[in-house]
C-alpha cells in the first residue's frame, strides 16, 4: 500500500476533565474514502477539528505525507491541502455564492489594480464558481450572485461542499455532509464524494447514515469512548458488526487487522 497522506498518532484532547480524544490513531491513504463513525460523544467531531486545525490537540502528532505538521489555525490545515466542510455550515449568509466559495482566498485583479489597489477579480471568481457548481451538478443554484441566505439548507450545504472540493488539494473532510439534504441533493453529494476519490484525493466522511457509509467507504474507522475501537472494511464486516463495535457490544483487538 502507498504511504498515507494523513496520519494521526496518539491524539489526546481534553476539555477540562472530559477526555474527548484518548490517544487516537488515524491513517488516510490517497484515493480512498475513510468513513469515521461512532456514537454521539465518541470524539468524531473533536478528531476532525484537530485534523482541520480548528482545535489544537493536547498531545500526539499529525503527519501530512509523512512529515509532522502543527496546525495552529484552520489556515495552516488549508495550506497543507486539507479542506473541511463543518457540520455547522461555515458560510457567510449575506455574501453571495461566489464570494463564499472564495472567502479567505480571494482572487485579485492582474496588474496594478490588483497589486497596488488590491482590487478583487469578481468576474473571474464568479466564472470559476459557476464552473465548480456545474461540476457538482447542482442545477438548482442558478444565480452565482445570489446571497447564500436566500438558499435552502441543502443548497447551502452544496455551496460548502463545492468550496471544499474546489480547494482541498489532498484531503477533503466532510462532517455529516448529507444530514440536512433532500434525497436528490444527497445523491449528488454522494456522487461528488466518489468523484473526489476518482481524482486521487483522500476523503474523510463522518456520517451517521450506515447505508451510505457502507456504500461509499473503502475503510471504516470506528470511534468509541474517545478512542479508535477498530478499522473495518465493508467487505469484511456487516453493518451489524459496525454497530456492535460502536456500542461496545463487540470488541476488536486494537491491532490493525484490516490494514
Amino acid at each position, binding site marked *: 500500500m502507498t504511504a498515507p497522506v494523513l496520519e494521526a498518532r496518539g491524539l489526546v484532547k481534553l476539555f477540562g476533565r472530559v477526555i474527548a480524544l484518548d490517544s487516537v490513531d488515524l491513517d488516510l491513504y490517497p484515493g480512498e474514502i475513510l468513513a469515521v463513525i461512532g456514537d454521539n460523544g465518541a470524539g468524531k467531531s473533536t478528531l476532525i477539528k484537530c485534523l482541520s486545525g*480548528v482545535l489544537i490537540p493536547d498531545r500526539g502528532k499529525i503527519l501530512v505525507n509523512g512529515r509532522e505538521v502543527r496546525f495552529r*489555525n*484552520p*489556515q495552516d490545515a*488549508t495550506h497543507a491541502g486539507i479542506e*473541511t466542510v*463543518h457540520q*455547522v*455550515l*461555515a*458560510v*457567510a*449568509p*449575506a*455574501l453571495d455564492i461566489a*464570494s463564499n466559495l472564495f*472567502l*479567505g*482566498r*480571494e482572487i*485579485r485583479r492582474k496588474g496594478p489594480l490588483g497589486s497596488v*489597489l*488590491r*482590487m*478583487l477579480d*469578481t468576474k473571474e471568481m464568479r466564472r470559476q464558481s459557476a464552473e465548480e457548481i456545474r461540476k457538482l451538478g447542482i442545477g*438548482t443554484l442558478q444565480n452565482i450572485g445570489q*446571497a447564500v*441566505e*436566500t438558499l*435552502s439548507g*441543502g*443548497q447551502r450545504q452544496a455551496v460548502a461542499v463545492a*468550496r471544499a472540493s474546489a480547494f482541498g488539494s489532498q484531503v477533503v473532510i466532510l462532517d455529516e455532509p448529507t444530514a440536512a439534504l*433532500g*434525497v*436528490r*441533493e444527497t445523491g449528488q453529494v454522494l456522487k461528488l464524494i466518489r468523484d473526489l476519490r476518482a481524482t486521487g484525493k483522500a476523503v474523510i466522511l463522518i456520517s451517521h447514515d450506515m447505508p451510505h457509509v457502507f456504500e461509499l467507504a473503502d475503510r471504516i474507522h470506528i470511534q468509541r469512548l474517545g478512542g479508535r475501537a477498530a478499522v473495518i472494511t465493508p467487505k469484511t464486516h456487516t453493518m451489524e458488526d459496525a454497530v456492535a463495535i460502536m456500542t461496545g457490544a463487540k470488541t476488536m483487538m486494537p491491532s490493525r487487522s484490516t490494514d
Partner: protein
Amino acid sequence: MTTATSDGAASAALEEFLNRPPTVGQRIHGILHGQPALSPAIVLVLACVGFSLTSSHFYQLQNLSLVAQQVAVVGSLAAGQTLIILTAGIDLSIGAIMVLSSLVMANLSYQQHVPGVLALLVGVAIAIAAQAVNGILVTRIKLPPFIVTLGMLSVFTAITLIYAQGQTIQLQPGAFLLWTGETFAIGSLHLTYGVLLMIVLYLVFTYALRFTAWGRHLYAVGDDIEAARLTGISVNRVLLSAYLVAGVAVAVAAWVLVGRVGGGDPNSGLNANLESITAVVIGGTSLFGGRGVVLGSLIGALIVQVFDNGLALAGLDPNYQVLAVGVLVIAAVSVDQWIRSVKA
C-alpha cells in the same frame, strides 16, 4: 422547498405554487435586501421635496451648501462608525476620541507652535492609537464592544477635559489646520474642503468594502463570526483592522471639526457619539453586523441635517427635529428587522 421539488414527487399544483410569481412585498424585500441604502435614499429625497414645498429657501444652493458644511463632521465620523457596526460592534467613544484628537491638533499648533502638518499627524496618531486600544480590548481581552467603548467614552472625555483645562483655542485665520473650514465655490454652491475630505473618505471606504478581500472579510466577520473563523479568516486581525481604519475616519472628522469651530473646543461634538450611530442606523446598516453600505451612513447623516435645517426654515420648534430623528431611527431598525427576517 428544494426537497419537495427534488424528490420528483411534487404534484403539478405544488410546482405551480413553488414557481408562483413573487408578491409585491417579496419584490420590495428582494430589492431592499440587495440595496440597503435605497430606503434611506428615498427618505432623503422625500424630505428634500417636502421641505422645498414648505420653504422656498430650502432648495437654494446657499442653503444646501450650509447643510453640506454642517454634515461634514458627523458624516466623517459616521464612516468610521459604519465599519465598527458592520463587524456587529458599536463605538460609543468615537466622538470623544474625535474631540480629544482635534484639541491636541489645535493646542500643539497654537501653544506649542508646532507646524500645522506635524500637529495634524500627531492628532491622527492619537485617534488611531485610541481606536487601537478599543480594538485590542475587544479582540484580546474579548470584552463586548459596547462595554469597552462605554468605558472609553468616560476615559477619553476625562482626558480631554483634563488636557484642555477648560480653555478653548482659537487658531489664527489662515492656519494650516483651518484648511478644512475654508470654502471653495462651484457656481453658487459653496463647499468647504472639509466636505471634500469627507467625500474622499467615503469613496475610499466604499472602494475598500466593495472591491477588496478585506471588505468581504469584514462583512463575513460581522455576519457570522464563527463561520468566518472556520473558513480560515483571521477574525481578530480583521476586527482590529476595523477599529484602526475607523481611527483614520475619526482623525479626518477631528480635522474637519478644527476647521468648523476654528480651533479646539472641549465642549464641541458632545453629541457626536450618538449622532454618528444615528446616521449609521438611519443609513440602513444593521446593528447586528454584516449588512449595510458606508454610503448609507452619509445619507443618514444628511437626513438628520436636512430635517434640522428644513424644520428651522419652516419656523417649527427645533424639538420636532429631535422627535423626527427618533421616529426615523425606530423605523430604520424595523425595516432592517424585516429585511433580515423574511427569507426570499
